[in-house]
């Protein structure tokens, strides 16, 4: 029997109602038992939240936990600890593992393991195509039974238009949404960074914007023609936003962005080196401005991480030899605060909606993303004021490949509560009992 937890004197964030409220939250048996002002409970374990924001736990649609196959980069366990530290109570792990999550047996085994890990709820996306090869449809019905909640070939884009056209129709039978990584691999082939003057001067082949834009256009039209629920992940270009803005509302389309695409550009690549090598590549100022405008308007309605941890050896050597990917799960939220709240792009409520309420709705997680009595006690408490420096040495993630080392940021999650259990307190993962 776990003890009751009482969060006192916090500013409650109610993203579903787009409002704040002063009050206390009492947690009992893994659920939110009461929300009111001035709750007293001498038996409960107290969290003093004065000066802090208390809201529904963050839901991250895009992480790579590398299991099975690349446990040297990350595991479900280390990834979940990183999620707890980052304030994420639910994460969606991408299926481009080795082997990929295209087989119900593998998903079952992994889901079983995930259930024994308490630091965050780990959900899984199944593969769109067998082996994530973009050729044949995976078994969506059997995958859903095994536990997948979405479909993605992330890491690559689906090559065959016909496959995607049929998959969009077929998956509706099982009510599974798609999460698409948009990149025409013929156009991005041999590219290491954004195509432009920087790449030219460094002597690298570029990844042009149109590699993303052309696939966005095709897949928006396929979505429109089939009525599928389609989410576009890690947008990086101005045109992606323009296309989505034009078609949004005509089909159930949504999109996310990553913090690095809002805070860095290709100009930062020479200075910061291999840690900035990522797909899609860091682009230009005008793309950043367009992405922020998209976030402000709601064209981009979800904020995610694309947490892509690597072992040090994968990021060593020349830029051309380094792997693509940035590990950022533990700093995603303060990075978004810097890029969006401090810049006045969106307010705290909207930030919370995009980090919690909106992704929970996308995954149809009925009792998450809302702070209300009776809901699962997945709660994130955030300190909007105190500044701390990013220190990758403190990362719980195995991936230290983060270009934001040394940045001074505000808006860090300071408590994470998953299913009524405090898994992170004062920016440290709680091993064992919290109180």
């Amino acid at each position, binding site marked *: 029997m776990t003890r009751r937890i009482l969060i006192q004197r916090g500013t409650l964030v109610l993203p579903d109602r787009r409002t704040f409220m002063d009050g206390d939250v009492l947690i009992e048996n893994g659920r939110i038992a009461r929300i009111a002002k001035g709750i007293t409970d001498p038996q409960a374990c107290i969290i003093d939240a004065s000066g802090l924001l208390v809201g529904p736990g963050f839901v991250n649609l895009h992480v790579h936990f590398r299991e099975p196959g690349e446990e040297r980069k990350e595991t479900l366990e280390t990834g979940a600890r990183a999620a707890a530290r980052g304030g994420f109570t639910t994460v969606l792990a991408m299926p481009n593992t080795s082997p990929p999550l295209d087989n119900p047996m593998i998903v079952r085994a992994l889901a079983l393991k995930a259930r024994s890990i308490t630091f965050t709820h780990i959900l899984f996306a199944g593969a769109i195509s067998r082996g994530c090869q973009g050729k*044949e*449809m995976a078994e969506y019905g059997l995958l859903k039974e095994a536990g997948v909640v979405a479909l993605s070939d992330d890491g690559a884009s689906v090559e065959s238009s016909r496959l995607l056209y049929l998959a969009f129709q077929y998956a509706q*039978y099982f009510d599974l949404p798609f999460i698409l990584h948009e990149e025409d691999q013929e156009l991005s082939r041999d590219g290491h960074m954004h195509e432009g003057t920087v790449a030219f001067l460094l002597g690298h082949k570029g990844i042009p914007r149109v590699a993303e834009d052309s696939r966005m256009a095709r897949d928006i039209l396929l979505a429109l023609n089939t009525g599928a629920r389609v989410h576009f992940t890690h947008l990086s270009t101005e045109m992606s936003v323009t296309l989505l803005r034009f078609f949004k509302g005509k089909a159930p389309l949504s999109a996310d962005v990553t913090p690095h695409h809002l805070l860095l550009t290709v100009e930062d690549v020479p200075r910061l080196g291999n840690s900035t090598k990522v797909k899609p590549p860091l682009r230009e100022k005008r793309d950043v401005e367009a992405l922020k405008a998209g976030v402000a308007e709601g064209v981009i309605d979800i904020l995610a991480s694309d947490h892509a941890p690597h072992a040090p050896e994968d990021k060593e050597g020349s830029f051309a030899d380094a792997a693509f990917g940035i590990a950022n799960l533990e700093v995603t939220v303060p990075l978004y605060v810097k890029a969006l709240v401090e810049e006045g792009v969106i307010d705290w409520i909207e930030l919370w909606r995009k980090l919690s309420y909106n992704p929970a709705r996308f995954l149809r997680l009925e009792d998450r993303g809302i702070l209300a009595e009776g809901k699962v006690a997945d709660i994130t408490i955030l300190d909007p004021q105190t500044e701390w420096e990013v220190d990758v040495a403190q990362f719980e993630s195995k991936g230290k490949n983060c270009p934001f080392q040394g940045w001074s940021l505000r808006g860090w999650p300071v408590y994470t509560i998953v299913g009524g259990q405090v898994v992170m307190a004062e920016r440290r993962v709680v091993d064992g009992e919290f109180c």
Partner: protein
Amino acid sequence: MWIHRHLTGICHLSKEDILFILDRAAYWREFLEHSPKLSNALSGYSMVCLFFEPSTRTRTSFEMAGKLLGMHVINFSLEGSSLEKGESFRDTVRTIARMKADVLVVRHRTSGIPEYLATFLPCHIVNAGDGLREHPTQALLDLLTLRRVFGKIEGLRVAIVGDILHSRVARSLALALRKLGSEVIVSGPPTLVPKDAEALGATRVFPVEKAVQEADVVYLLRIQRERQESGYFPSLREYAKFFGLGEELLEEFQRSVVIMHPGPVNRGVEIAYSLVEHKASLIEEQVTCGVAVRMAVLEILLCEGKVR
């Protein structure tokens, strides 16, 4: 009154035409119960079965029907034919018709072939299945089967489950059922049950469980492996699990539902192994009704058609 020279599709028939055939077919169905089965109703007439696609039951059924009526029946075999020597399709069929065949029974993988033949051949054309379009004698034999079991077709709710997109059986059957006043539900993987199928007068219902629950008749279609290869569904095991008729599904909604299938059956895929010979299965009766319906069609085309 019968006004048709050919039977190329249900789409050309009226409700009265269909009932006319069914009434005559019911007579021949009774006739088939007796041995020796002797009739010389069509003796002296000739029929050529031109099958450009593989077939066991339909071709045998036509052959049986013709022979029971005393006809001369010739089976054209594609192998070793002059088509293989490069003769055009048009010339091949013209040559056969010139031998004064009275009836040409045609199966072809191209939709619309029977109508095309009817434009220039002097004989009666019976469509034994053209491409994805129609298979009228199959629909008629299904109606005869249903009428024998339920007494009438009107008001029945029939769920056709499976590959509607590529099924000439589904097209003909749905059209015929609608003409006779029954309700048609189609279900299966959304990739194979397009919205356009509503043009048949059918309602799309998902999931399959719901379609089965609402139906008096569950009509399963054969699922072809090549549909998986062309990407319409991911695997046979997934098909069997979510779109096939299993025993649990049948027990769950057990009322007086009957099961039909045009054959050949993939046991364990669209229908559970044991359900093929289940008491609710009409699959064998369908086969017998097939002979009776084809006898009726041949008789009506050759005798009634002349009146005109």
